[in-house]
Each structure stands twice: as C-alpha cells, then as structure tokens.
C-alpha cells in the first residue's frame, strides 16, 4: 500500500515550487541571478534557469462518526463499526501525510498540519479523547457544518444511516464551498443482511425507540430494499455534490477499503482534476 501510494501522485505537472526537477528554461530578464543554474549554463553560451515541478500540498479534512450507533458489532469476531472507521481514518491520514498532504481532523478546530506531528495530533484527538468533542456525539452521525477552506478535500467515515435528505443537504453545503471528497459508509454485515430470526425486539442505539417484530425473517427482503434505496439516495446526493460514496463492511479487510479509497482519490475519481486545479 505504502509503496503504491509513494509513487508521485502529488506532482502537479506544472512548474512551481517544489523539489523535483521539471525543466530548464532560458534565463529571462525578470529572473533573479540566483535562479541561474550555473552548472547547466556552463555547458553552453546561454544562461539557463532550473525549474521544479510545483508540488502544492492538498489539505484533506477527515471525520469519523463517533455516535452511539457506531459502537456496534454483530458478532464477537467483528470489530465495532466505530473502531473500523477510526482505523480507516488514521490509516488514510498516515498515507496522506506520507504523500505530503496536509491533514486535519474535522470539528477539532485544527489547522491542517504536516508530518508525523500532525498524525500524532490526530491520533491523540481520535483515540485518547474520543468524546472530547461534544459536537461529535450530538451530530448524530452527520459531519459538523464546518466551514472548510475552498477546494479542500474531505473524507467522511460513518454509517450514514441518517435520513438521506439530511446527508444530501450537508453534502450540498460542502459542495457550495467547492469542497470535494468521499463518504466511506462503514456497515456491519448484519445491517446489510438482517440475519435475525424469530420474534425479536429491536432496540435503537440512539434513542430511536423499540420495535418488536414477530418474524424477522419475513422482513428481510423489505429491509434489503430499503437499504438499497437508502444507498441509492446517498449516491445521488454524492453525485450531485461531486463526491464519491464508498461502502465498507466490517467483515472485509480494511486494506481493501483503503485501496479503494486511494484509487478513488487519485485516479478514478472523475473529479481528480480538482486536485490539479487546486
């Protein structure tokens, strides 16, 4: 993973501030004398200026759902959704930082940072003070309405089981600021398949109330339809906002989700031009 990511995807393919050699250019009048590459110039009669590729770091804002519904795992061997979401967040943050991006945690009133220090700060916020931010729990599974810098990128991890309209409204808000990004829906397999049988009392995890179902298995198809519909609505909202929707199940390895995420952010994203456009 790290090797894949390390290949230069950060190059902006244009001249600018950076460290990678881009081209030699004949000296022009407005160039400072210090800009002359004397080694190159010595091989010919004219003066040359060495230009590097512009390597502007992208600022990426990360957010993980910390609401109660994320503390769920249907089986003993499965991780909790919240744990998986935080794992994915940290992993992508590490990768982004290694790629030279600037990364910040959403809702932490933090400035995007670079390097190991930023990763440590994020991990600290995320793991050691998980409930330090009351807004995270109050937001009930939605990212905070935070004013992000224009053209920033956002990565949102959560189960996104809130009504699709609310999510769509939030995404539209981001899009209005030309903030792009991706939603990573982390779901437990039980939420996908509804494997329960018999008479069951369902209890919501965020005070939604109780529901007693006589035969759960008879509801399975209807539930699957609803889930599909919900996801379709989410995708619509993303498309409208120019975002990506990725679905990850906790019984899948997290590497898979990370790879998909990386591909989405780097290549296959139809909006990858944005990265270049910065």
């Amino acid at each position: 993973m790290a090797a894949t990511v390390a290949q230069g995807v950060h190059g902006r393919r244009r001249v600018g501030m950076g460290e990678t050699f881009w081209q030699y250019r004949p000296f022009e009048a407005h160039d400072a004398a210090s800009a002359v590459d004397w080694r190159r110039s010595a091989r010919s009669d004219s003066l040359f200026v060495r230009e590097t590729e512009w390597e502007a770091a992208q600022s990426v804002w990360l957010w993980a759902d910390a609401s109660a519904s994320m503390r769920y795992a249907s089986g003993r061997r499965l991780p909790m959704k919240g744990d998986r979401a935080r794992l994915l967040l940290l992993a992508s943050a590490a990768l982004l930082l290694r790629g030279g991006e600037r990364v910040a945690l959403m809702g932490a009133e933090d400035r995007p940072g670079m390097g190991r220090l930023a990763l440590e700060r994020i991990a600290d916020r995320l793991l050691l003070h998980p409930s330090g931010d009351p807004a995270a729990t109050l937001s009930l599974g939605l990212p905070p309405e935070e004013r992000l810098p224009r053209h920033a990128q956002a990565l949102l991890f959560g189960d996104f089981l809130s009504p699709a309209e609310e999510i769509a409204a939030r995404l539209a808000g981001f899009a209005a600021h030309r903030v792009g990004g991706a939603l990573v829906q982390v779901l437990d397999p039980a939420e996908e398949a509804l494997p329960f049988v018999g008479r069951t009392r369902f209890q919501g995890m965020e005070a939604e109330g109780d529901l007693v179902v006589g035969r759960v298995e008879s509801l399975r198809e209807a539930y699957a339809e609803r889930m599909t519909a919900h996801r379709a609505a989410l995708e619509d909202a993303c498309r409208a906002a120019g975002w990506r929707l990725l679905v990850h199940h906790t019984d899948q390895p997290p590497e898979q989700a990370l790879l998909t995420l990386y591909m989405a952010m780097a290549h296959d994203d139809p909006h990858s031009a944005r990265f270049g456009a910065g």
Partner: protein
Amino acid sequence: MLTLGPLAFLQPWLLAGLLALPVLWWLLRVLPPAPKTVRFPAIRLLFGLESPEKTPDAAPWWLILLRLLAAALLILAIASPVLNPERGLDGEGPLVLIVDDGYAAAPAWGDRQARLASLAEIAGREGRPVRILTTARAPDGAPPEISDAMPAARAVDAIDALSPKPWPGDREAALAALQAASLEGAQAAIVWAADGLDGPGTQALVERLTAIGALSVLTPDDRLSPLLAIPPRAGVSDLAVTVRRADAQGVREVTLTARGPDGRPLARQSARFEAGEREIDPVLDIPRAVRNDLAAVTVEAPGAAPETGDGVADEAARQAAERVATPLGPAATALFDERWARRPVGVVSDAGRDVGLALLSEVYYLDRALAPVGDLSRAPADILIRSGQTAIFLPDSTPIDAGERAQLQAWIEEGGVLVRFAGPRLAQAGDDALTPVALRRGGRQLSGALQWTEPAKIGTVSDFGPFAGLDLDSEAVVKQQVLAEPSLDLEQKTWMRLEDDTPLVTAERRGDGWLVLVHTTANTEWSTLALSGLFVEMLQRLTELGAGVASAAPGAADRPLAPVQTLDGFGRLVQAPVTARPIPADQLASAPIGPAHPPGFYGTETARHAVNLGPTIEDFRPFPETPPGVARAGYAPAAERPLAQWIYLAAFLLLLLDGLVTLVLRGQAPGLGALSRGRAGGGVAAAGLALALLAVAPGGAAAQNALDETQEVGPGVGQSSDLDARGPDGRLTDEAFALRAASATTLAYVRTGDPEIDRISEAGLKGLAMILRQRTAVEAAEPLGVDVREDDLSFFPLLYWPVTDGQPTLHQGAVDRLNEFLANGGTILFDTRDAHLSAGRMSAASDGLRRIARGVDIPELTPVPPDHVLTKSFYLMQDFPGRWTGDTLWIEKPGAASVNDGVARVLVGGADFAGAWAIDDAGRPLFPVSPGGDRQRELSYRFGVNLVMYALTGNYKADQVHIPAILERLGQ
C-alpha cells in the same frame, strides 16, 4: 390406590391433572415466546415495515414438548407413585404388631424396625390404627402391655423407639396382656415379629392370635437366628467358647470376636456349624499377652457370604464381610472376668532368709520365667496361701518350716498346685513328706571335676502329664539332680525324664491339687534348664494345672455385688442402667436374669464378676410350626420404593433445562450467543455446558485452595523470630533460649534479681562482647542473662556472677546443675563488686558468696600467679583491674585438678568488672572507673579479653610457654 403392574399411585385422582396437558399445549402454542432483544443501529430502516405473515411466531415444538413433559412429570409426582407396592393388610380392623424384643431379637434389629415401620405405613395408607405389644418385660420389670390404637405416624415413632432387652421375653405375660385388651371381632391384621425361638406360652399365643385375626409370623432367616455363647469353665487353659444354636439344620458360619473391656477386638476367629450340629466349641487363639484384657467373646453372624474367587478380591470380600458382621445379641456374648484371665502365681521367698547373689538365685530365675505366665507375687508361703494363688513355686533355696509345710499341704488338698524344685537342701533333707515321690538322699552328680559322665539332656515326656506334646528340642542339660527311690507307681508319677530315663519332673495328685517336683534347681547351679525356653513353657503348663482363683474380695458370702457394666439388648457393654439391682455374691450363678439383673459385670471396678446370659438359657428351640392359615415370612427389607422424589427431581431438571434453553433463545445467555443460531441443538448443548460448568467449579475451587495452602506454607519456614519466642511470662521459652545460646558464642551473666545490677551486668557483657568482636576472632553474641535455678547452663563457656547480699540460697537442684556445669568445662567469675570497701578483707558480699557457694564444688583458690595463663592468653598483663583497683583476683590453684583442660573453673574477684565494661547504646562507658583513667578501663577490657580467651582456648597459651624448649630439642 391405583396399581399398574409394579407401579402404583397412592393418590390416583391427582392423575386427572394429566387431562389439562392438551390445554397447556394449546396455550403454549398460542402464546408467543418472549422476544429476544437485539440492539440494532439500522433500526430506522425497520420502522414501518409490515410483516407479510400475520401468524405469531410460536415456540419451537421441542421446547413445548419439553415443557409438557415437565408438567406431566410434576402431575405424576404429585400422585405419589410407588414401585413394587406392598400388598395390603388383611382384615379391616387395626393392625396389631406383636414384637419380640427379648435378648434373641437383637440381630439385625434395624431391619426389623424398618419392616415394622413399613407395615405401619401401609396401615396408615389404609387408614387403620396400629397397636403394638412387646413381649419382653420393661426395664422396671413391668409386664408387657398392649399400646392404645395410634395413627401410623405415631406408630412409626413408637417402633423407632423400641429396642431389644438383654433378658428373655415373657410370652405368657404378653398373652395375658392380649386377653386383657379384648380384641375379639376386630378383624385385626396381626403381625408377629418373632425372634425365631420357642418359649413358654408360644403355642398359646399363636392360638390366641389366630382367633383374633389374620396372623402372619415374621422370623429371622437362618443366618441371623439367635445363638448362645457359653464361656468355658474358669481356669482351663484353652479358651473354648461353646456356641449353641436352636436348630441343627444346615451349615452355618459364625465369627467369634474376643474383645477387651473397651470393646476393642483382640482376636477374631470363624467357626462353622456342620449340618446336624447343635453345638460347637471352637477354641479361641488369643495371644497370651492380651489374654488378661479379655472381657467378652461375642459371636457374630458374618456378612453375606462372599461368592467371589480367590486372591485379592477374596481378601477384600472377606474384610468387607467382617466389617458388616452382625452381632447376635447378649446371649451370644460370653463375658469373662478375672477367674478366666488372671493367673496369680506365687514364688515362695523370704527376703530375710534368702542368701546368695540376687542374680543367681532361684527366685530370680523363677521371676523371669513366670513373668509372662501370670501375676507374680513373691512372699512367704503363708501369705501366698492367704492371698490366693493358682500355683505356688517353691524353690529349694527358700526354707519352709513345719507350720508352712502343713499349710501348703492343706492348700494342695483344696486344689492348689505346688511346684517344688530340688536342690542341695532337699537332697540333704531327711524325710520330706512334701514330695510326690520318695527321694534318695544326696542326689546325683552327673558332671564334675572328678566325673567322667557327660551332663544329661532331657529325654522324654510322658503321654499323660501336662507336658504331653511339649517340644523337647532344647540344649538344656542337667548336671545334678535328686533321684527318686524306685517304686511301683514311679512310672505313673513321672512327667518328664532325662535321656537316661531318670525322672526329672514327678507329680502326685493330692486331693484336688497337684504336688509337682522338679528334680533339679530352678537356677543354673545344677542344670542349664533354667536358661532354656523349655523352662518357661514347662512353668506355663504347670501353672495351667491350677484352677482359677476368684479374687478374694473381703466381705460376707452374701455381700451384694452392684452391677458395674451390663450388656444392652445388642450385646454391648454399657453403663449399668438404674433399674439393675445388685446380686448377692453367693447367688451369682443362680440369680435369674431379668430386668432386675441384666447380664453383665457385677462387683466393683477392680473385682468384677461376670454374669452370663447364655448358660442360663436351657429351653433353646426354634420357633414351632404354626397351624395352617398362619403366614410365615422373613424380615427382608421392603421392596416398596416411593418414586415421587425422583420424578420431582427429573421435572426440576427439565424445568432447569427449559430455563436455559429460553435464555439461549432470547439471546441472553452470556457466552452462548453462537449457540442461539443452532436451533434444536442449542438446548442440549446449553445443558451440557451448564453441567460442565458445574463440574469445573469445584475443581477450580480445589486448585485455588491448593494454591492458598502453598502460599501459606511458604513464609512460615525459617522465621528468625523463633529466636525470640517468649513464654507467657516474657522469658524466653526453653527452646528459644537454647537456640539463642547455642547459635553463637554467648557470654552469660547470672541474674541476681536486682534489676539495677542485672542491667549493669548486661551492659558490661555487651561492652566486653563489642571489644571482643573488634579485637579478637571471638564473634560474641548479645549477652544472655541466666537463672541458675532453672536455665540450662551447658551452652556457656563463662558465667559472670555478680554477688549480692540479696541473692537467695541455691536449692539442691541448682547446686547440682552448677557442679555439673563446672565439671563439664564451665568457668564462673564471681564478682563481689566491693573492692573499694573491703580492701582485700572479708566483707558482707564475701559472706554472700560463701552462702551462695555452699554445696558448690569450689576448688582451692589462690591469687593469680604471675606466670598464669590468664596473664598472657591475649594481652600480657599482671593487674586485673575492674571499676576498682587493688583487689586480688583469686583463681583455682593450677595443677590441683586436671579437669577441664587445666582451665580454672572458678575465679573470684571484687573489682566490679561489669561496671568497668558497661557501655550504653551509643557505646559510651556507663560508669567512671576509680581511681580513673582510660588506661584502667583499657586494662579492665584487656582482662575481659584475656578471660574469655582463657575460657575458650584452655591451656593453649600455657603450651606456648614450652615452645622455646621444644624448638631447642628439635634443633638438636
């Protein structure tokens, strides 16, 4: 009662509850099971979903079946099912139980009670009252009485309270009681729990009972039918207990157990009635050493005969059978008193007239040989006769006068056994009538300086005497003997001969007793017979000739003998009941055994007379044939078995299982979540898991206990606090004292009782010990105060003894201890501490020293000579100052004794050495020295060092003196 084959229900109408089962089925089908609870994040998607199936979810069929089964079991259990129910009772009236509770009823009494109780329970079920009539008289002598009609529950209690009596039943009296009760026409069911014996009134009672109602007679089986045990005649050597049975049918095994006064078994032996035998008399083989302990022989019925093969299994089965051996009651218990046990034998001895060396005397040899035979007493003849002896041994060395001779003569006539030994005195005697045969004067010498003949060995024994069968394989030889005059009856009177056929032992019957003469001495003067084991066996057999002697308790012939210990109805020796009355001594044999005189021991604790039940029973026949119509049965325990408890248990287990399954189905069983998905298998697996948990829990607890124990063991070892363990009075315990004193070189001071002086002594020795540790190789430990009157002094090389006026005089034990201490290498430094007052003269403290040392082995003293080892054992010094100077140090005069490696045992000074040595905790001197100066204190320390070195190393330094001379000699 509803009977279905071997199963019956006592409350059959409750089975109607089974009809409710279909209703229960329907209810269980209709009522949905409690939902399992699931926390689910995506519940929003579920809201509003309608299930297409309207039928509620039902509990799985196997769960319903489980519950129905539990319900059915409960109903069955309530209906009181019984396996193998008892046949009902005959008749309609009350149940009359006739219970034989005489001596013969003891075997397996518990089985009888159980059988009777089950009969009473049947009567209770049928709602019939119970009346009980016992046939033996009550302990207070009251004749049997029939009880009032009582309900079954009370009857069971009454049956439980019955116990057999150690006297015969009285069926005639029972018959009278029955007639008084007028049970005619009651249509009673009558059960007679008989003891299996015939007796007066039996026939009449049977007739009477058959007239009242349907009679069934219970008799014990052959294995447990009563037996009589009759002790052997008192005084015989063999312990042959006669065992008699009522019938003579079949083969029967019995076990005889010899018991001590406390019931402890001494020996056990089995015997066997062959078919047709009514009486056997097996001989109990009891070690002679424990025979005097014998109090009773109980005859027991062995347990159910083991049918296994041989080897280990057989051994185990035999032991098991012995364990369950059933005692057969008081009649099968033969009691033994002193008449059987004690064999008083006497050796005629007169300390005043005996001469010669004690360890070679005849009396001594007889003593040693007779010790294992019986209770031995040595006394003049008249006293022996008065005190009653089985046999009297008269050695040749003890002269007897004419009066004693006549007394002995009379005593033999009455049944005594007098064993005489020949010897020089008898050989020289003229006419001695007190011999079985006429003797030649002078005797015969077979071996001697002027003889060519060899000493004679033992030849043969006669077939008829007590020595018949004696093993003569002995090295014993006879060097000298007295010879019998030949006579016609000499052959009949001779019991033992030498190899040349001359008589060695002759005997004559006189009256009821025996006069026996051994033709040689009882010591080694004339023969080595007295050294051989044969001698002991001969004396044993001679002793057994005599009849037992009743202990001669003083008192009139008809003095009353109080009961000491009596047999209870089971044949156990217990404290005599209050209802037992004394028996006059002369009626012991004839007193009728009954409530007033139960069998047992009478007399006093020391002189007990056995009153046996067995010999008094003459009419001992089995229960007679009964007329037709009378049922006969045994006491086999009832096969009826109530099942309700087991069914309750099964129902409970099923309900428990149901609860577990329900928990699993609702997903609330922790750790069982995975099982909730398997449907039918879940319940079974859950039950299995629960059982496994139950099984594991105690194991875990045991492991935990084991862990705890190891943890407790750990730190207990090697605790140094043992060294300071103190007794209740704050002093060191003996062991702790020894540990302290022996674990290092310890200086010790004598505690004077004056706390101030003791404190100075301790501080002084502490200071000296410090100096020793600093300057020398002596690793002296903390000093220890000792009390010469109590403590063990042997640990200490040196005792510092400050002398005060107030010290008490030593008692003899302390003086002995001090002398021992001095003799075994101890050294005592007496310090009168008064040099500043006395200036070398006698003083009060000197008086005190004299008083204390009175009795102590104080050697001659002298001022320390200038070349004494003490002056050079570590430091070279001539003065020995303490706190004071100018005093003379006295020391044991060198060379006076060579004990103790030449180290002086006693030093006496008055310079208050401890005062000079004493330091406080900070190491500073406690007292000034006089006239003063560090030099004086240093010199006093040096004296201390020299003294300790001297006490520890002895004359080592004295030898050093000779080194120059030795070297010089070696050089040449």
